[in-house]
Structures are given as structure tokens and as C-alpha cells.
């Protein structure tokens, strides 16, 4: 019962002429598939494939100063999922500006710089430094479940989110994506708040709060107790977030994230109303997953000229 893979014949190392591009808030992605923040490091991935082949790369959440993140163990496995509690460890924006960003731009990548903060001033400090950088887009992470301040505490509170947006929006003309959390009753509420206060695009979903327990010790596996769930298991929750947001906000560009590990699943997001998708946890299990998804989707779009034309024009299926 072993499956003959759609992509068995694809040589991912051969350069590919992309047939179907997309537009996200005026930025052209050469295909609709990017990497999700936190699951892509240039230094690690460049060994596996030419990163400029992707629609875009969303880099690891970047803070004003280096952050050390949470203690280890930081991860556990859920059924068909990863649970992570990194806590936004990163070397800080100054390092990003001299290291990752120039290297990625030199390699020819379309770069989405993901921004992290513990408070509004943190976010502002990072955005200030990225405002004149070579980053193509900014993605404000108000949805991390693994930090006690900032992150999800902003994304679940439309008032706090509006306040943050009012602070960040005037600071830059760069397209600003707000990344939302599914850990809310109705994701359209923060979505509206973000858009009404100047967001150029939305990305969703970040991880769902979850945990595992070691039945030998009776204690949580992750040192920080809880973490964020991502990977195949979260697909239905990601799709519903995009679909419902598209229903109430017909014009805002949306990047669909959550459980994408094949071209077919990417296509579901596009039909749900997304302009593009990002691949996260799948890249942990298979380094080339984002590129494979992009190649599979490129072929699937051949048979869907109406959808492909809409995407290329910056429009969406619904």
C-alpha cells in the first residue's frame, strides 16, 4: 500500500521555471509558497536547496536585543504534530541586519522579516531598524504562545493590537503583515483590528497551545510545561481561520499557514481565500518540504487557470 508519489519524478535540484506567481500586498512572490518563521534558518537550509527558489522566506522572530528563549527540553511530539516552546530565542535585530538578511538578499530570496517583542517598544525598536533595510516585507508576530509578555498576549487582545499597530504603522512604508494566533474564539476580531489600524496583510495561523506528559514521570515533557502545536494535525484549524477571515475581510491579502506539507494542502488554503501559504513544521521532518510543496502546487495550478490568474493579479479565489 506504499504510495507512488506525485513528485517521485521531480528533481528538486534542477532549477525550475515557475509557472504561477502570486502577489502579497504588492510584493511579487515567484510562487505562492514560502517558509514559515522559526522553521527556516538560512545557515541550515542553504545546504539543501537554493533558497531563492521559494516564493518567500519568513525568517525567525527578531527582537531588539538577543533573546535566550526557554530552557530545554523545548519540544515534544503530538499525534501528527510538533509541539515547540522555543520562546523566540534569536540573536537580535543587529545580528540579523549584518548576517541573515544580507546573505538571503545576496542569494536572491524574497525576505519576510518576522518581528518579535515583549512590549510595544520592543516591536517598535525592531521595526525602526528594519524600516530602511533590504527586507521585502515585515511580519509582526503577535501570536507566539511561548512568551509571557508580548506575542500572543497582544494577538488575543484587539485593543492592545490596535495600539501596537498605531505605533508601528507610521514607522515604515514596508508592507506590514500581522501574524495572528488561533488561540482565540473568533480570529476575525483581531484580524479586523489589525486591518483597520493599517495592516497590509495577515498571516495565520501561529501555533495552537498544547502539551504532552511523560507517563513514566507524570510530568510535562517540555520544560516550559506548554508549547505551540503545529504540523499536519493543525490543518483544519488553519483553513478555518483563513476562510472565516476572508469572509469578513474580502480584500486583505492573507498568507495561510498551518499543516501544509503538500501541494494539495497548499491548494486548500488558496481555495479558502489565501494569496499564498507558508510551510512550517513539515520542514523539520524533511528539509526540502517547502520547495517540494511549491513544485507540486506549481503543477496543480496548471489545471486551475482561473485560480492561477487571480493569484498572479493579487486577487484571491473568494
Amino acid at each position, binding site marked *: 500500500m506504499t504510495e507512488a508519489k506525485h513528485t517521485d519524478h521531480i528533481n*528538486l*535540484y534542477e532549477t525550475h521555471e515557475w509557472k504561477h506567481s502570486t502577489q502579497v500586498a504588492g510584493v511579487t512572490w515567484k510562487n505562492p509558497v514560502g517558509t514559515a518563521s522559526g522553521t527556516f534558518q538560512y545557515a541550515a537550509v542553504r545546504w539543501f536547496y537554493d533558497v531563492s527558489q521559494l516564493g518567500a522566506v519568513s525568517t525567525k522572530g527578531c527582537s531588539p536585543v538577543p533573546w535566550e528563549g526557554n530552557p530545554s*527540553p*523545548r519540544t515534544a511530539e503530538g499525534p501528527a504534530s*510538533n509541539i515547540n516552546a522555543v520562546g523566540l530565542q534569536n540573536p537580535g535585530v543587529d545580528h540579523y541586519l549584518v548576517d541573515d538578511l544580507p546573505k538571503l538578499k545576496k542569494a536572491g530570496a524574497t525576505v519576510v522579516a518576522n518581528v518579535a517583542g515583549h512590549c510595544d517598544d520592543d516591536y517598535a525598536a525592531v521595526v525602526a531598524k528594519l524600516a530602511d533595510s533590504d527586507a521585502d516585507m515585515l511580519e509582526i508576530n503577535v501570536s507566539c504562545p511561548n512568551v509571557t509578555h508580548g506575542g500572543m498576549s497582544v494577538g488575543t487582545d484587539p485593543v492592545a493590537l490596535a495600539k501596537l499597530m498605531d505605533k508601528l504603522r507610521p514607522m515604515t512604508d514596508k508592507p506590514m503583515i500581522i501574524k495572528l494566533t488561533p488561540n482565540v474564539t473568533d480570529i476575525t476580531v483581531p484580524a479586523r483590528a489589525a486591518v483597520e489600524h493599517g495592516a497590509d496583510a495577515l498571516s495565520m495561523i501561529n501555533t495552537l497551545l498544547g502539551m504532552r506528559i511523560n507517563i513514566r514521570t507524570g510530568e510535562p515533557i517540555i520544560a516550559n510545561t506548554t508549547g505551540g502545536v503545529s504540523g499536519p494535525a493543525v490543518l483544519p484549524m488553519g483553513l478555518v481561520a483563513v476562510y472565516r477571515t476572508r469572509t469578513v475581510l474580502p480584500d486583505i491579502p492573507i498568507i495561510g499557514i498551518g499543516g501544509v506539507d503538500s501541494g494539495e494542502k497548499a491548494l486548500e488554503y488558496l481555495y479558502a481565500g489565501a494569496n499564498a501559504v507558508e510551510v512550517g513544521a513539515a520542514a523539520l521532518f524533511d528539509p526540502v518540504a517547502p520547495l517540494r510543496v511549491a513544485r507540486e502546487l506549481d503543477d496543480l495550478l496548471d489545471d486551475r487557470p482561473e485560480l492561477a490568474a487571480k493569484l498572479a493579479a493579487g486577487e484571491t479565489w473568494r
Partner: protein
Amino acid sequence: MSATFTPTYDVVNEAVAAGFFPPRHPADVTDVTELTPGVIRLTFRDPYIAEHARPAQFVNIFTDDPLMPMPRPFGVSETHDGEVSVIFAVVGKGTAGFARLEAGDTIQVLGPLGRPFNTKTAAHYVLVAGGLGVPPLIYTAQHLADDPATRTTAVFGYRNEHFADKFVEPYADATVSIDESEGNVITLLDHLEAEGGLTVDGLDTVILSCGPLPMMKAVAAWAAERDLACQLSMEQRMGCGYGTCVLCTVDTVDGRLKVCADGPVFTREQLGWGK
């Protein structure tokens, strides 16, 4: 029926020729042997990994159950003619599945991963391992066996059965081992020192170690007291194994570093152990 990319060997070869690293790919299992109850040696055919793996590097092995998508990392224990062995303990559902593999089955692997032991200097390498820390040190011994500039002494500690002595003996210049009924690796190291076995042919002594955390801390302290160089191969739950997710950190004097890509090998100074 999972949606995983399984490149053919041709793809991997082309990738390597193009300067890329082979992605996750299938490999044929050639042998599965139970060494002692619950401890298995798994051998698979993988010419790329066999050629390139260095001591303390590891391979990610994946289960065939899509409910368990995360990598299972294992240190390489031996390589022969395009074949790679790992030795593992059955601890959870993933390793339980691997223990049921048979020659002729296929597994998905990614590797070799991680920074190896630094064995470049001419030295007497004392290979101190406990429990399931033995595999990388067997491979270190194999790797150094033909190096005229080095000597190796294996110092292995077991819970009970001395299951790995027979694998390291052909490669190491000397092998001593112990189990919990008699003592631990520190007992052996003290004994070695007392007998003058720590210094061989006037070479510098370097301790390379892998095993349970308390053991490695004790080994680092022992080395520090004697001002010996000491490199330790660490373990941590991983997300990717190749440096992209920062899920596998260990606390060092330089902050939280990745076990998979900054390590698994760290010096005792980096870990701040035994000062």
C-alpha cells in the same frame, strides 16, 4: 501512504554533485540484531553517510507512522562498505518500531548531522562512554584505528551486560569496562590513572565522552581536576536535527547553543563543567 518526499538515490547523487546535501531519503535495512534485551543494532545501506560520517555525528531516522513525524537521532556506531550501523535502546514507540525492522525493510534517514569530535591532534584519546553513549565512541575508535598519530583507550560503563566491548575491542588500543555492580567509569578512570594507563607513548591525553548527564558531568570534573582536554557529546530532544529550529539547545557559557548544529560535541569549558 504518507506524503513524504522520497527522492531516489539518483536525486541524492545529483544533489551532492551539485554541492547540495542529501535530503531525507530512503535506505535499505541490511541487518537488525538484538545485542542485549532492549538494545538493538540496526544496519542500513547508505554509501553517502558511510563515506562522510565522522565520530559523534548522528543520523535522523524517521518512523513510518505519520502520527510520529519527528526525527529520532542516533549516533553512528560503525560504518563498513557503504553500510552504517547505529545502536539504540528501546525507550518509546519510535524505537520500539525500529526494533521490529527486518533486513530488506526500508527506512527514511537524514545525515550525517552535527559537529564531530575534534580528533585532529595527535593524542591519546580516552573514550569514556556510559550506557547508550557507547555508539559514537565505538565509531571514534574505528575512525582512529588506522591513524598512526593517535592511541585510543575505551572506558565503557554498563548497567549490566557489557554488550559493546566486542565492537570497540577490534579498534581501540585498550578496552576496559565495568557495570553497576562493580562501579562506574570514574572507578575505571581512577584505576587507569593509578596504573599509569592515562599516558600512552608520551601523547597528550584527551577525554571524549558520551553518556548520561550525571556521568558526563563527573567525567568533565575528573578531567578538569587533571587539566585534561575533554569533549562531551550531548543529547537533547530535537525538532529538525540540522540547525533550523533552535529546539535542541543546551546551556553553555556562550548562551544556549544548538545540540544538533553547534554540537552535539562541546568542550567542558563551553559547558562550564568541572571548574
